[in-house]
């Protein structure tokens, strides 16, 4: 296992959205801060820094993870995916993103990246998720604008439940 010295900046190498990157950070730096302020991927948002709101959710090796509850050094050598990876390079939204737009599933958009990443993971494992399953996953996220109805409808659409 890699050892890091508390007082020395550590070099952290990881894959972010398919690109290999390396940068230095204090060993205590949160992954959320590292991704945003060191790597410059500001699409991942920080809402509570205590693991409740879900806004900072990213995929680590394909698994939805709260990036505010993880240190950057723990992501060494791993594959991190953020919301910036979802749309095509020409900006075209993927089906989940488009479903969010179709169903007015966002207003301020601050919690949205975390929700998209949770369902990117979940729908990959359970492409035809039921409404109850969708709500179960969504209950790991706080949204203050929408009242959630649009989000549930969007994920249902993406899960092929709604024509």
């Amino acid at each position, binding site marked *: 296992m890699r050892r890091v010295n508390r007082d020395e900046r550590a070099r952290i190498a990881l894959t972010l959205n398919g690109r290999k990157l390396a940068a230095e950070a204090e060993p205590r730096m949160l992954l959320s801060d590292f991704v945003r302020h060191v790597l410059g991927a500001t*699409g991942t948002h920080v809402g509570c820094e205590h693991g409740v709101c879900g806004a900072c959710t990213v995929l680590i090796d394909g698994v939805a993870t709260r990036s505010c509850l993880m240190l950057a050094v723990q992501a060494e050598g791993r594959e991190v995916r953020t919301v910036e990876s979802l749309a095509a390079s020409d900006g075209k*939204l993927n089906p989940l993103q488009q479903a969010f737009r179709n169903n007015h599933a966002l*207003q301020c958009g601050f919690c949205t990246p975390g929700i998209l990443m949770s369902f990117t993971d979940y729908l990959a494992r359970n492409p035809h998720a039921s409404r109850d399953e969708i709500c179960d996953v969504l209950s790991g996220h706080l949204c*203050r604008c929408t009242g959630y109805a649009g989000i549930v409808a969007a994920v249902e659409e993406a899960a092929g439940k709604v024509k």
Partner: protein
Amino acid sequence: MSGPLGKTILRKEDPALLSGRGRYADDLPVPVGTLHAHVVRSPHAHAEIVSIDVNAALKHEGVWAVITGEDVRKLSDPFMGAVKSPIQLWSLAVGRVRYVGEPVALVVAESRYLAEDAGELVEVEYAPLEAVIDPVAACESGTPLLHPAAKTNEVSVRDFRYGDPESAFARADHRIGLTVTFPRQSFTPIECFVVVVQHNPAKGSYDVLANFQGPFSMHPVMARALRVSGPKLRLRIPPDSGGSFGIKLSVFPYVVLIGLAAKITGRPVKWTEDRIEHLVAANSGPNRVTAIEAAVNNDGRVIALTLDQLEDYGAFLRAPMPGPLYRMHGSVTGAYDIEHVAVKNRCVLTNKMPAGLIRGFGGPQLYLAIERLMQRIAIELKLDPLDVIKRNLIPARKFPYRTAAGALYDSGDYSRAVDIAVGDGRLDELKRRRDFARAAGRKYGIGFAVVIEPAMSNMGYLSTLLTSEAREKSGPKNGAVSLATVNVDPMGAVTVTADVTVQGQSHETVLSQIVAEELGLTPDDVEVVLELDTAKDQWSIAAGSYSSRFAGGTAVAAHMAAVQMRDKIKAIAAKQLNVLPDDVELSAGKVRSRSNPDNALPFGRVAGTSNWAPTLLPEGMAPALSETGVWTPPELEPPTHDDRINTSLTYGFIFDFCGIEIDPVNYHVRVDRYVSMHDAGRIMNPMIAVGQIRGAFAQGIAAALYEEFVYNEEGAFLTGTFADYLVPTVTEIPEVEILHYESPSPLTPLGAKGLAEGNCMSTPVCIANAIADALGVSDVELPATPRRIHAMMTDGR
């Protein structure tokens, strides 16, 4: 309307926000060398600051400065307030702390992590004082004073009297009343506060980026505190903010504090609030105790009303408080035709975080009293609660209707809206569900609420808290100015700017619809740039996003700007098409002759004339490059000598009813069905309207059942994390059936009214009424948590 306005158009905002390309305050780059601030906060609810030792913190690695109340006192002035008093409010505590979480010192260091480390080393010695938490006790003599210089905790008291309430009470068949309390809560936007300030000593100016939401009446307050003129405080709002709901008004003290830090260190300084700070100290809605009483005749007709409203603003009456008491003042009789009213408004200070803006702003507190009272009247007189409501509604023939306290209700047919909702919302079926549930021994109740939703505030309403003589002395305050600008570029591309701040309201989409409608374009043809900059944009003190001012304010200004631009383009085209301006129409991207549509030019060609060939313009015309709509509705008059005030421009109507059932095992309130009828005038984008209503409904449910800032008797704050302060998740929010009835406002050219706050006002009391109906109780304390429900069900047994 044949164009895009009034139709569901998918949001222009979404592609960027869904792709991680939003630009929120914390995303934007800061200058190299920017320092980071951390706020050291009071652990005491009430204490004298004996000493602050910053030496250890200053010696810590990377620390540039530790700022205390003494520095703030030397370098700035106290914030101006709405109520004249000897109370001074600074951006850091000076001499005394008055709530848990109050900023006491600011550490400025090379990173946020280092600043937090050093914050641990700031040694503050406190001499604790007795905390004052209960607002009623706070008013009693002998209670400790938060601000001894004020000589009282009850810092503003005003009596209002309209008509002849005493005689009405004397002749009424019954007097029916109750006392209700509304709790403290917030709507905690998921993005916290962010402030970045650069100070330029050569110019004596501050350049601020902050996710402040307005109103920009706070700009002079901030500039005055920083001891600079307005232009020396450049305030820039980021293009995106992660929700606000009123809360981000309260960024303003930190703008001043971080400004001082930038001045002291000579470096740009950034502060990003964390969630723990946000919950303990950012902002709260005020809690209120209302004693309300009605003079009622046997048929349930209310002929007079008295209210004693005691509002707890926390440790300071921070501008623009006491807004919640006065924003609703004209609507103090709600949706009812009541001529005689007496109102006592009292503001009290206690050892809690200062109250500020919150969606609904005074409405939830007021309607909890009125609508609980209407139910009590029905029960005490053995009448049907909906019949009592209907008997008292303002009849359609009386519109426009001037309320006792001076509001001018612009339009509506309340009885008709109620009847439609009862039918389409299937009240009969709900009653059958109740009967069925009760027959099976279950606790099931039905609640009703009617609400008037004011929008587009009269900036003069707050001056109602002054006496007529004091108003005379301080000069008239009234009106509300809205501004929007339509620009056309050399190729005829259209951009719009406006005086709103963006926190998810879909302004970009709706403004593009409004402007496209007039210019014969599509919303995709119209770029909307909303990142308000006080140095370069046109703004007034009314600017910002609050009190539902968009539909009745900025939207109108944008419409006006678009009409002005359209008329200029018609005149330009008339010359080029050789027709009269009246024969010109803008449609499908073309400017063409109405009588001979083949005689047409592309919009861009005509609009571009102002850039490429301005001498071809009709004689005397200024080039059509930029048109600003300035909207200031004449109905927003100052308070009259007898204290009548038209508090807002438009007044929407809401009628809600719901069925709830109480779980016999865990005492949870389950919403079985909820119906919400809205009359918000003309709807500009149905999808967005529904989204706003659903969002407000979720917050109304939160206030009714879950969220509360809790202080114990010593003033300790008990809800400091999202594990303690219960923001509902998807599983806690029931479905809402939304119905519309449209009574266009005659006072705005678009006919639209506000609609984004209504359910924050109606839902808490609708649920409370249903709980009262289910349990047969007269007092329902909100939020109706399982603990409280259990207490209600077991009291007296």
